[in-house]
């Protein structure tokens, strides 16, 4: 079974530029999550999708971050404009359905904002 795929793996941008990350969850997984992991911290939930609907985006900085999962499969996370403090690893995870506790994480996208 293929795991969660993410791209790119690394991205370096200058502040005020925009960037987008892509995630393809495990086939059949209805729930998709985006997490932000700053160096030395645990992952922090940004947004959770159930199919193509948003379940929880309470910690998403909506003035600069946006995410979508249009067809209920792949998802993109965008930052526009980026700030220095957005430097982090962005992790995508999926689970079979809500209430299925185990989450499967992708390798992450490491973002450096200069």
């Amino acid at each position, binding site marked *: 079974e293929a795991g*969660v795929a993410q791209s790119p793996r690394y991205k370096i941008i200058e502040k005020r530029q925009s960037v987008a990350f892509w995630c393809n969850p495990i086939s059949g997984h209805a*729930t998709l*999550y985006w997490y932000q992991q700053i160096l*030395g*911290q*645990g*992952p*922090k*939930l940004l947004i*959770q999708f159930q199919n193509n609907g948003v*379940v*929880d985006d309470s910690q998403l900085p909506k003035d600069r971050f946006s995410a979508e999962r249009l067809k209920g499969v792949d998802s993109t996370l965008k930052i526009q404009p980026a700030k220095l403090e957005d430097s982090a690893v962005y*992790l995508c*995870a999926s*689970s079979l359905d*809500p*209430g*299925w*506790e*185990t*989450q*499967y*994480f*992708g*390798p*992450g996208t490491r973002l450096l904002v200069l």
Partner: protein
Amino acid sequence: SQKIEQNSEALNIQEGKTATLTCNYTNYSPAYLQWYRQDPGRGPVFLLLIRENEKEKRKERLKVTFDTTLKQSLFHITASQPADSATYLCAPHSGGGADGLTFGKGTHLIIQP
């Protein structure tokens, strides 16, 4: 506010010994608690889940305990090996509402040969 505390310092253990990692939480009433392992440059990998009505759970060399009175979970690795070196994250969960996880900072475990 809710807080999750894990050993802030790296934990150095000699190969073959038992490693014990601690997860304390406050202002939570978790229905279950999960432990994940994270290697450098990789995403977390699920290890074990323990529910509030379970005192202990085992999987091969791994053992997790859950004390809801002390608000603490302990994670044990017996007969530790250098390959067990990684960061271990705990994530208590209320079990209700949205299912996103809140993680502790993690404990960096180093098993020395």
